[in-house]
């Protein structure tokens, strides 16, 4: 919220509520994106992915508010003036569901990869101790 | 027998070009899955297809040449452009040559490849290659020509790489590189031309719209001409684009016989004749001013090919370079715009095919029977393989242009045509090339007959027929010898009876008059 005051204090820009959320959403999305693209660690990357997802969904919500607010003529049936445009909110919900699915899949993959890497490291240590036992459990490609 | 063929009902005629193309296609499709050891069945399919094709051509000749029928078949292919197969005398001319020589080369190949592997693959691609050649000859518009032209490239690659040695693969790769480059040049030319004048249908005196194009904006027309003739020049082995031909001699003898004497090389030259006569039309080409440079290029290729042949010691390499120079005779003849020279050029299409196939058959025989690959190894071969050497001599005399053979007829026509055109200096190119031909063929003939083989390598002493008075006489395998003798006989027959009713010279003259009026 200090950030908001700082912006207001600037006074240069008179932000409506919708523009404010738009700005915050974009900021979050960009931060998440940069973080995701630049980390080496997989789990950190997955979390950054979620942050970007949340950021983009916030943008969509801000847009939803805008259309509701302006009661756009083409909007047609949805209730004028009340909070959020229903279609876009449906969009946000689906986005959430899909991000969750992908995060689940990503987590399983990361566990598998790390598991394989640990096994790999364990083997290299064993080989150092008793070489004759190695090789069998190794990948028989 | 012939009378039965003549009564083919008129409405069946348009089906013949399609049947011709499909005939060897079905042969190929039937041959590919055959197991290696089913020699009889494979030979049967091959021969029936080849014989059927020759008969169809004979049936077409009276209809097309005598009473001017132009059977045509078209199928939708691209938006606004169809695949068109049309039979006109020039198409019949080239298709007849390739059908006849396909039959003879199949017989030769059956004998030649008896011991080797991958025969089904070989004969499958062999039939596909002839499909492409017949397709090229019957194509009615530039797109169909391009489709079969590229098909020929694809199909000849495995034939050149048949032996599977690294050398043959390298040669095949270089051939593919040249041919693909050429094909792309033709593609761009065709695209550009189609943009200007719509689908380019072959028509006597040039496709409609092209002459206006040449008048309206000559520069793009010139560029299109250069692209088309350059692309076709690759297969016609014109000077700067001939590098692949000598290398492709690594292929088995029947391949180098049919491909590099008839199918591939002639497809390029046939294309150039089509572009000159039926796309641009001779007047438009003259207006563009492209004929003289083409003439000079062809003349230079003739002399360059002969000069290079002089420096080769390997027989097949020497024949390859002689092919390069001989094929440019056709371009030379066509580039000189008068009936005599054009008929000389077109008739050389067939004559050179017959002569060169004979020479390649004999080269294959020499290599196969007495392991002779270079000219010096041929010493004294006349006594050991008299019939092959006789066929080779007929072919060699044909190349030099001595009278009883077909080579003399085309050289005489080209000579008189050259003097009638406005480039009389071409006569000296012909004379010079005859001298060069004599310079690199006569020593071989001299070595064959008049030099006694100093030492005869024991292993080549195949046990000849035991009671032959001449112990050196080697048994020449029948199935290889018969085609060579037949083509040699044809060279002599066509050379002597040049003015017979449907002899090649008459058809060529008929075509030339049709185009130049």
């Amino acid at each position, binding site marked *: 919220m200090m950030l908001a005051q700082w912006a207001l204090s600037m006074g240069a820009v008179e932000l409506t509520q919708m523009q404010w959320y738009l700005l915050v959403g974009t900021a979050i999305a960009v931060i998440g994106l940069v973080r995701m693209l630049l980390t080496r660690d997989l789990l950190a990357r997955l979390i950054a992915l979620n942050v970007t997802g949340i950021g983009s969904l916030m943008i969509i919500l801000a847009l939803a508010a805008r259309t509701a607010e302006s009661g756009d003529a*083409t909007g047609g049936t949805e209730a004028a003036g009340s909070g959020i445009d229903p279609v876009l909110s449906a969009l946000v919900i689906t986005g959430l569901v*899909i991000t969750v699915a992908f995060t689940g899949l990503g987590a399983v993959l990361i566990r598998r990869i790390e598991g394989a890497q640990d096994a790999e490291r364990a083997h290299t240590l064993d080989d150092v101790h008793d070489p004759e036992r190695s090789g069998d459990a190794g990948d028989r490609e | 027998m012939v009378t039965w063929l003549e009564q083919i009902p008129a409405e069946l005629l348009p089906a013949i070009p399609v049947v011709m193309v499909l005939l060897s296609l079905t042969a190929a499709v039937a041959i590919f899955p055959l197991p290696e050891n089913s020699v009889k069945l494979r030979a049967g399919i091959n021969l029936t297809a080849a014989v059927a094709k020759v008969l169809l051509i004979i049936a077409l000749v009276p209809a097309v040449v005598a009473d001017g029928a132009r059977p045509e078949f078209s199928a939708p*292919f691209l938006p606004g452009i169809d695949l068109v197969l049309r039979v006109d005398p020039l198409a019949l001319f080239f298709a007849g040559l390739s059908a006849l020589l396909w039959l003879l080369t199949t017989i030769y190949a059956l004998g030649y490849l008896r011991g080797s592997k991958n025969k089904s693959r070989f004969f499958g691609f062999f039939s596909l290659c002839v499909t492409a050649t017949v397709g090229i000859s019957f194509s009615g518009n530039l797109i169909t020509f391009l489709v079969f032209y*590229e098909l020929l490239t694809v199909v000849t690659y495995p034939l050149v790489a048949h032996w599977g040695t690294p050398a043959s693969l390298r040669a095949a790769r270089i051939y593919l590189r040249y041919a693909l480059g050429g094909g792309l040049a033709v593609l761009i030319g065709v695209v550009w031309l189609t943009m200007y004048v719509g689908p380019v249908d072959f028509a006597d005196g040039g496709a409609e719209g092209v002459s206006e194009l040449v008048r309206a904006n000559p520069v793009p027309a010139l560029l299109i001409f250069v692209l088309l003739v350059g692309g076709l020049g690759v297969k016609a082995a014109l000077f700067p684009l001939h590098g692949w031909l000598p290398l492709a001699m690594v292929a088995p003898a029947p391949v180098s016989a049919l491909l590099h004497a008839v199918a591939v090389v002639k497809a390029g030259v046939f294309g150039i004749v089509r572009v000159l006569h039926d796309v641009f039309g001779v007047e438009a080409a003259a207006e563009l001013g492209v004929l003289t440079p083409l003439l000079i290029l062809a003349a230079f290729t003739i002399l360059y090919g002969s000069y290079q042949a002089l420096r080769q010691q390997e027989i097949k390499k020497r024949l390859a370079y002689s092919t390069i120079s001989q094929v440019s005779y056709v371009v030379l003849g066509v580039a000189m715009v008068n009936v005599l020279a054009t008929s000389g050029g077109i008739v050389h299409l067939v004559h050179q095919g017959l002569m060169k196939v004979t020479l390649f058959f004999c080269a294959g025989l020499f290599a196969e029977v007495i392991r002779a690959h270079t000219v010096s190894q041929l010493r004294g071969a006349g006594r050991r393989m008299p019939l092959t050497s006789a066929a080779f001599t007929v072919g060699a005399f044909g190349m030099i242009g001595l009278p009883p053979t077909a080579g003399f007829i085309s050289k005489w026509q080209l000579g008189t045509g050259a003097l009638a055109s406005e480039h009389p200096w071409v006569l000296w190119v012909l004379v010079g090339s005859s001298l060069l031909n004599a310079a690199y063929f006569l020593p071989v003939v001299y070595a064959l007959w008049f030099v006694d083989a100093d030492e005869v390598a024991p292993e080549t002493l195949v046990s000849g027929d035991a009671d032959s008075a001449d112990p050196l006489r080697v048994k020449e395998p029948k199935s290889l010898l018969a085609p060579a003798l037949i083509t040699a006989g044809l060279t002599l027959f066509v050379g002597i009876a040049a003015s017979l009713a449907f002899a090649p010279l008459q058809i060529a003259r008929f075509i030339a008059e049709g185009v130049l009026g």
Partner: protein
Amino acid sequence: MTAPMSLTLFCLAAVVLLPLLASALSVLLGTAARRVMGVITSVTVLGLVTPILIQVTSGQTLELALGGFESPLGITLRADGLSALFLAMTAIVGAVVSCYAAARPAATGKRLVPAAEQRRRSHPADAGIGAEATAHREARSVVHADPSPVWRAGHAGFWPLWLGCWSGLNAVFVSGDLFNTYVGLELVGLTAVALVALGGRDAWPAALRYLFIAVLGSLLFLIGVALIYSVTGTLDIIASGEVIAELAASHDADLAAVVLALCLISLGLALKVALVPLHRWLIPAHSSAPSAVSPLLSALVIKAALFVLLRVWLWVAGPLPELVILAWVLAGMGAVAILVGSVMALRQSRLKPLIAYSTVAQAGYWFLLLPLLLDPETTALEGQTGTTLEDGAVLAGALGGTVALALGHGLAKASLFLAAGHLKDLYGTDEIDELRGAGRAHPMLVMSMGLSAVGLIGLPLSLGFTGKWLLATSAVAAGHYWILVVLVAGTLFSAAYLLKAVAPLLVMSEDDQTALTLPQAQTHPDDRALTGKAQLAPFVLGLLTVLTGFLGAWLTGVLEVGAPW
């Protein structure tokens, strides 16, 4: 609505829902039953697509509101020329690959069989993705009681994932509105990542990377869709297209939002199609995927993103003049893709990465049409006499060319990847110089690789040639001569690297006629079909690549149905 009409509409809905249903059902079945289910579903989908194709070719766009809910809330399915063609290609490739996977279960991936149940021939609780049980009939001789898990060829998880992916693809092709397209894209992305993961240990990192890319792409797409909705107020493709057209006519300020949306959507989809600077994820994913999966990935999955791109650019955005910068950037990236992809393909020493890079290269071709869409004026040829091209012809030619190239690439690449995968499974490696002379024992495989090479290079009698011809003619008509240069360079390069892949297989003997030491095929107890009839699949696809060469005119006719111009 006449009887046949309702039948085709039923097919339209069934084509999306049936594979989904089959995917769910197959989770409950055993391994053998799944294969049977898989084949049956693929055949039925093939059957369902034909009436749609016939109906569309007769010139009618099929439109169905699922469950009667009209837009904007309901799901409308629309099948016009473009979607019918992509449906057909996906059905053909999908059916052939499914039969291949059914014939050779070992090709569907590798699974980790824990040591415990190796001794007991019972139903082990498989540690594979998802809880489905896998039954093993083969007798298991245990080498020695080693507790660590062992890799086995074949992964039954292939079927549910592949059928799910298929239904997602069909959903994308027939969806009438942007939101359903998004859902379809996500379904395809999710299942594709899982399919890649079936490839065993070294495929997992690639799968993870693919996951991140997929999610990123779809997030960008989602924001774009939201922006478009906020401006046009509707998600339906046709309706939003009309609204945007009005806005463009009145030079409304909101157009800036539409342009921004287009940028985000285009870049997101370029990411999914693996256009050059963003292509690195595709190479490990497609080459380490199992031999039955990589053809699906290369031939079908990236086509979904391309399909959406074409929908958005032609139907929704209806080429806006403001997009000229974006169009040139994408076309530039496409041209660079062709060159970089080919050069990298030339430098590969293994077969599957080479083919993956070939996909990257061929992807470049599909973006060349964008600048054409923006200024299709035929002034270049105005002065010339004899040109008969009217304005729409350039657009039709460009679209026809791109679609022909994409479909041709689908058939050819599927055949090539199947053949390459087969060789890899047979000889255990896909190093090109270790496979020298392998062609002698498998003439059918080499023939199908040759045929697909013809399709990829774009030699005549293949859809590749038709595509290049249409693209070239419309480029020359619109005066964009640079496309000709790119096409020529692309053709020559593709010939070079395909020759590098196919030629060594033909080698039979060293130069001095000594026999060549052939790679020895590894023993595959549990994969009897390896040398058997499974080789037919790549051959069938190869033949189709060449035979579809005749369909050029028909294809452009179908594309006219429901075309935006």
